[in-house]
Structure formats: C-alpha cells, structure tokens
C-alpha cells in the first residue's frame, strides 16, 4: 500500500512539474479539482449496505483528486469505500461453537442454501476500500475538467470480510486479522458529465462499470467446485469478494467538487 502511494505521489508530482511548464489550459486556466461523489449502485446481489437507504440501492461515497495534464486529459486519484451485509440463510449463531477453520461444505439435502458443517454465525460483513488511479479523456471539444468525459480506472480493492452476529449485535473479528483481507486488482470505466457553475463549483453525474478480478476468480472457483477444498474462512472471504464484484459492477455517480 505504501508503495502504491509512493508511486502515485511520484507520478502526480512529475505530471504537475511537466504540465506547469507546458501551460495546459484547463477550464479557464484552472487545473486542480477535487470531487466528493456518491456512487449509487443498483443491488444485483441481494447485498445490503449499512450506508444504503434501501436494500436494492447501495451507496458508495468517494473522494477524487484530479489534475489536468492536457487540454482534454486529466489524471486523478480516487478513493471510495463501502460496506455491506450478506445473509447466510442460517439461523445458527456463534454460540454454537462453530469454527472458521473447519472445512467448508454444503448441505446436499438442501441445495438452496449453503450451510456450514458446523453451525456458524448468520451474516457476513464485508467492508471494501477501493483505490483507483484514473485517466479522464474529455469528449469532443470539452476542456478538462468541464464537460463530458470517458474515464479509465485501474486500482486495488481491499476487501475485508467478517461475521456479523445479528442476534447478538456483534461483529466477529477473526483472530488472524491479516488473513481475512483480500487485495483485488480492479479495472473500470466511467462516462461522466461535469458541469461548472460560478467558474469554481463542479457538479457531475454519470455511470461507472467496474470489475474486481478477485470476485471473478472466486466466482470461477465456486462454479468449478474448487471451493470444496476451502475452509469456512476461505469460503467467507471469497464469498465476500464475489459479492463485492457484483455490488460494484455498475454504479451511477453523482457528485460535487471544486476546481482551482
């Protein structure tokens, strides 16, 4: 993570020093912009975010810092995060003495539900932080950062999955904290429109498609029975990653920002 920040800092500094000399105009000569977005995700995976207003519509706040490197190009760094709960369809609770390290299995007598060999907590709690480096290409003749643009994203999702014991209102944290994290490379693309009012305020809207690779790999693992060799813990981590992929696959973005 530290390496990523270092890389981004070097990249941003290089771009700044290069373009400051190059006199890239930007909108009215303004080059730096900061946005606060709220991504609204239609829920494709029956996940429920703690930040959501409804079960079917998840929210993902984001902050994005950008710099125009050319008349119609800008680079940005974007951090977004959310969390959500995934029900495991079991009525068991943690007091039953289940263990996450036991092998994972499915109840063959009831194929509609995935159950654990030993009863376990009822819900998954997954929190996600996404760190994206993006490049914005402005449409037609728009001058960055005003107007419509196409954005390419490349970054990392840090997926942290835990149990949530709803009955006891407790978040169960694994003892081995480092192992319940998954780092997933991700790519994405967005199409957005920035409107500028009073020459400083930036209003924007658009949509984004994102792909978390870990979720896709997990999905492949589940669908090819590789999951049978998982432990409960692995199962839960990959289950979280898989649902995260579905959750962040498509977002509507709205946001406000300032340019300077």
């Amino acid at each position, binding site marked *: 993570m530290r390496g990523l920040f270092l890389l981004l800092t070097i990249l941003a500094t290089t771009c700044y020093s290069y373009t400051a000399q190059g006199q890239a*105009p930007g909108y009215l*000569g303004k080059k730096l912009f900061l946005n606060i977005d709220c991504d609204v995700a239609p829920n494709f995976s029956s996940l429920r975010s703690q930040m959501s207003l409804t079960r079917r519509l998840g929210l993902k706040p984001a902050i994005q810092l950008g710099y125009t490197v050319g008349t119609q190009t800008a680079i940005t760094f974007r951090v977004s995060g959310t969390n959500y709960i995934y029900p495991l369809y079991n009525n068991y609770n943690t007091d039953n003495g289940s263990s996450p390290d036991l092998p994972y299995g499915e109840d063959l007598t009831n194929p509609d539900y995935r159950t654990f060999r030993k009863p376990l907590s009822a819900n998954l709690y997954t929190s996600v932080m996404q760190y994206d480096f993006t490049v914005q290409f402005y449409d037609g*003749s*728009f*001058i960055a950062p005003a*107007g*419509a643009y196409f954005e390419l994203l490349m970054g990392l999702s840090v997926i942290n999955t835990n149990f949530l014991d709803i009955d006891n209102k407790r978040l169960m944290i694994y003892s081995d904290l480092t192992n319940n994290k998954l780092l997933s490379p991700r790519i994405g693309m967005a199409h957005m429109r920035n409107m*500028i*009012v009073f020459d400083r305020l930036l209003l924007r809207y658009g949509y984004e498609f994102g792909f978390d690779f870990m979720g896709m790999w997990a999905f492949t693992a589940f669908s090819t029975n590789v999951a049978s060799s998982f432990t409960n813990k692995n199962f839960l981590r990959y289950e979280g990653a898989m649902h995260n992929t579905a959750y962040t696959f498509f977002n509507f973005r709205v946001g406000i920002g300032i340019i300077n």
Partner: protein
Amino acid sequence: MIKHTKYLLAFFISLSTLAGAQVSTHLECHGKIPAEFTTPSQEKAKIAIANDSILHDKFSLSRRQQREFFVQSSYAIDRLLKSGKVLFNDSISMYVNSVLDEILKNDKNLRQELRLYVVKSPYVNAFATGNGIIFINIGLLAQLENEAQLAFILCHEIAHYTNKHSLDGFKEQIEIEKGKGDYRAQSVEDKLLSQSNFSKMQELDADETGFNRYLKTGYAPLEADEVFFVLKFAHLPFDEIEFENNFIANKYYPLKDDVLLSELTPVSFDDEDDKYSTHPNISTRRMQLAPVLNANKKDGKEYLVSETQFKKLQKKARYEMTSLFLSSQRYASALYNAFLLEKIYPGNAENEIFKTEAMIGLSEYKNAYELDEVCTYYQDLEGQSQQLNHIVLRLTSLDMNIYAVYNAFAGLKKFENNKYLKKLCINAMVNLIADHNVNLFDFKKMVETPVDSTEDATEVKDEPKNKYDKLKSEATLKESKPYIFAFSEYIEDPLFVKLFQRATKRNLKKTEYLKLAQKDRDTSLNLQKIIMTQPYYIKVTNKSEEGFLIEKSEQAMLQVLDLLPEMAEATAVNLDMMTPLLMESDDVERFNDYSTIKEWLIETAYKDTLNIPSSHQPEIEAIMEKYGTRYVGYTSFFTLKHRKANQIIRSTILGGVMALATQVPATGVPFLLYGIARPSTTTYCLFSVYDMETNQKIKTFFYEYQMSDRKFVIKSTLFNSIFKLKKK
C-alpha cells in the same frame, strides 16, 4: 534561429503589403449613427409591440403571432442594418433621400415615418419593411438612367409600406402554411404557388398605388414605364458595349482565334416564367399600368432635384458596384464593368485598378483550377459580356497571368505615381513567376515591328545565317515559347525590369514565408491584441415548429459579446470588440471601420490562400495602424436541439432487438440507458483569426459539444481559443 525567423517574417510582410497612397473610393457613412443601427433586435421588438405602431389591425393576429411578426421582422432587418453594408449620410444616401423628400413634400407625416438607406449590394433590388425602412441597392442605382426612374422605384416602395404589405404577407403566409380558408388541403406545390400569387398581387398593387403617387409628382410619367425595362434587363451589365479584345491583349501577343466567340447569344426579350416568382413578369406589370399611363401622358421632368447630382450618383454607384463585384469575387463581371467604366469614364486610375485586380483574381483562380467559382459560364450569359467570359474561360492559365502582368504594368505606365498600382503589378508578377516558373529571360523584345496587329507578329524577314542564329530566330523562339514577345512593349523599360526583379526576389521570400506561415499556423501567435467582430449565433430546434429560435439566438449572442472581453482579460489579451451594438451615435468612424472589416473578412474567407489583393487593402492598412493590431477574429455558434423522444424510441427498439436476439432481457438495458442519457443538444463553435497583413485566415478552431450551450461551455470555448492564440 527564432530571431532570424522573426526578422525574415517581418521583412517579407513589410514587402508584401499592398497598401499604397491610393485614396479610398469606397462609400462611407457620415454624421450620427441612427439608433436603429445600434439597438438590439429584441429591444426594438419590445418597443414596437408596446407602441403597436404599425399593427393597425392587430386583432386579426393572435398575441403570439403579433410578437412573432415583430421579432422576425426586427431580426431580419437588424441583420442587414448591422452587416456594415447599409450606408447613411453619405453622398448617395443624401441625394436619394432628397428625391424622397421631393416625392413626399406634401405628406410630411409619412416622410417622417420613413427612413431610406442605400445598401452596398450589387444586386438590382429595393425593398420596404413594415416598420418604414426603404432599402435600395447600389446595383439598382447603377442601372437607373435618370432621377424620375429612381422616383418611381421609391413610390413603389412607399406603396408597399402604406399598404402594409409586409404584415399582410406575414398573415397570408400563416394561413397558407396552416391551410386555413381558401388554402385548405393544399399540396406543398400549391402552397408555394399561393405564396407566389399573393406576392405578385402585392407587387401589382404597389405598382398601381406607387404610380398614382408618382403621377402627383412632377416627374415624367413615361419614365415609370422605362423602369420596367431597367428591371427586365437587370441581369445585364449597366451598359452593352462590344468588348474589344485589346482591352486585355496586345499586338505582340494577341488573343488566339479559338478563345474568341464567333457569335454572341442575342439578348432575349421574351417574358420569363413567373409561376413561382415573387414578382410578376415585366409584361404583366406594364400591361397593368398601361391604361393609367395612356390616360396620363402629360409632360414631366426627368430631374426635379438635380441632374448633376444624379449623374454623380450614377457614376459612384457604378464604381461601387464594380468594387462590390471584386469583393464578392465576381471577377469576370468586374472586368467587364472595368471595360465599361473605361469606355464611359475614361482616364481614371480606378478603372486600371479594377481591371488589374479583376485580372489577378481571374488568373489566380485559373491557376487553382477553380475559375468556375468566379466566372459565370459563357453559355449562361447573353449580350456583350458573353465574349469576355468566353475569353476568360478559354485562355490558358499562363496566358491569363501574362495578360494580368501586361495590363497591370500598362495601367501603371498611365498612372506612374500610383503606388497601389505598382504593388498590384508586383503582385501579378509574383503570381506569374510562382505559378509558371518563368523569369525575365523568358521574355524578349520583338525586333520586327508588325505591320498590322491582326497579322502574324512573328514574321521574320531575314534568313538566319548559322545554326545559332536559327535557334535564336524569333520564329523558333516563338514556337517554343509562344508568349516570348508578350512584354515587347515594356521588356526594356527600366521600371518593368526593376519590378520584375523585385517580384522574383519576393517570390523566393514568399516560398520561405509560406513555410513560416505554415509553421505559424501550427504554433501560436503570441497574440497581444485582436479586433473581434460581432459574433454570430444561431439556435435551431426541431422540437417545435419554431425552428430558428430568433430571440434566444440574439440573447446568446449578447452573452458572447459580454464574455469575449472577460475571457480576453483573463488571458491578458487586449481585445477590441467591434460591433454596432457597443457603439455610441458619434462613433461613425468606428462604424465605417467595422463595415470595412466585415466586408474584408467575407472577401478574405472566400479567397482562402490565393494570392489576390483585397479590394479593401488600403483601408485595411489604415485600420491596422489605427488599432495597433494585424489580427481580426470572428466567432460563430450554432446549437441544434434534437427531438429526445425519437432518440429514446430508437434506442428502445434497438435494445428490444438485442434482448430478443440474445434471449437475455438485460442486454437491452444499455441501449435504453444510452438513449436516455445521450444529450439532445449539439453545440458547434468556430473561432477564426484573420491576418490583415497577409490577407489570409491563419487560425481556425472548431469545437463540437454534445451538450447545450451552457455558459461554462461558451466561456471554456472562448478562453481556450484566446489562450491558444496568446500562448508563446
């Protein structure tokens, strides 16, 4: 290297300027600028609606239609008033107004309601607006033979105003378009026919009412009938004189037989088909007035105000018309006019200038294989000018250039002190050298003087003695280079040699300059100051019947007018906004400059990169010096609003097809989303910069936005354009 480039550029530019000591002969406005030239259309419409000044029968139109009428008419008139083509308080306008005073000397109230302006347009036309403005074109004034004819034209136009034809026409058009009353269930063709018939009816009404008024003046009634002949043959030049070949050629290099038309198409006296025309044909008009005319064959005068002034007006109008032909690149017409001017008003330097400018224009267009753009095909013409157009068409590009040089220098010899002619001469020589790769040694003086110009000028009397004499003999030389003796008359003239040498040097510089100019186009101008003309703004929608959104267009244009100086200030560029909308009544000098710049811009835009002098070059030189910049900018915006519903329906159908094809309903969703999200407005902007020094467009920025013309879009466009010009 950069330093060197700059000096080279400056040096060439200083050489290439065409300014001279020529005194401008273009017509200019004087006195105070009338308020209607400086007021925005929407303000005028508001005032007109508040006053209801011309809408006497307003109850026949709905409130919306009344407003529409005022807005539409105000906008259309304003476009002309602010085009820089309309003259006021100049000598021609003053005289024409005095004729109007004479006609309405017994109707002071009506006189006060009317304003009469002369329009710098070569087309034979006059028209009256609903709010009491009469416009009369230079082209018509150049064709009229006496003051009485002018008076009848004015009476006709007054009748259009007093009979409220403008408003009636508007009302009728609405009924025709909506298919009301007699126009129910008409086809498109029938509608056109109905409009044409109504317009013709109005013209006949104006003829009749106008003639009745005309009879009350002291002008000769028969002259009214003569006006119809003027109008019938308005497509011909202002005179019919047989074209003389030696007007462009000379005895050492005469025109070849194949370039001459053996038989000219005679001028047709047949009536034209007026089925879809706005005006009835001349016979119909004459026939209508014949009974009244026969009943009133009283004596009258051809002149009541002043014959001398009319003759002056006629002459000025003819010169101005020729100039207008030049600025609109109608070079063949300008050349024939120059021929007529030389015949009617001989010994005038202007004639030589017009002739030279026209020949340079023709030769350059010929070099670029685009002659058809500036010369009407001879078979589409009739009368004497047909010969000239045929010659121009048939001449080779090289011959055209040679004749341009010959005539330019011949003109200079007649008026040796005319610096402008000298510069034109060099210009013609540069074109000859650059486009045909010839030099001074390609031309020789013919030793043997031909007995007769029609005979073969190359006849050699002495037999050559040896091989070299044979090679150097005139006959041999002429066979290899037919044009070799074209400049026999001047080839030993020290001035000719000096100018040719100068042109040769300049051609070398020109090549260098063109490279630099190309480089300059690719980089920025380091712009410090620029003159911007009034922006042009059009907003169109296909969402409603309205189509062209006149009021919104003007509002948007005014917004651009405000933003331009603001954006220039933000980029530290000194911007001089040149528009009548920002002028005070005392700014007549500035108005004339605006007018010149507008005409020059149009002329330059058409010429593209051809090396043709501007007919406004001397005035443009003065403007450059006065405003301290060589750059003129022009910006135009166009927004088009589409029908969103159609777009969504199209996307839904596409999405449906996709969903059916893949059996997965979700695959149709992106198409539907695209249809909804896709903007329904497109905005285009063009920002062009012209160089007054080189007479060329040097920068063009084109912008296209899939978005409505929001303020930030306009600001961004203007800022970016000016920034790019300013950037070092």
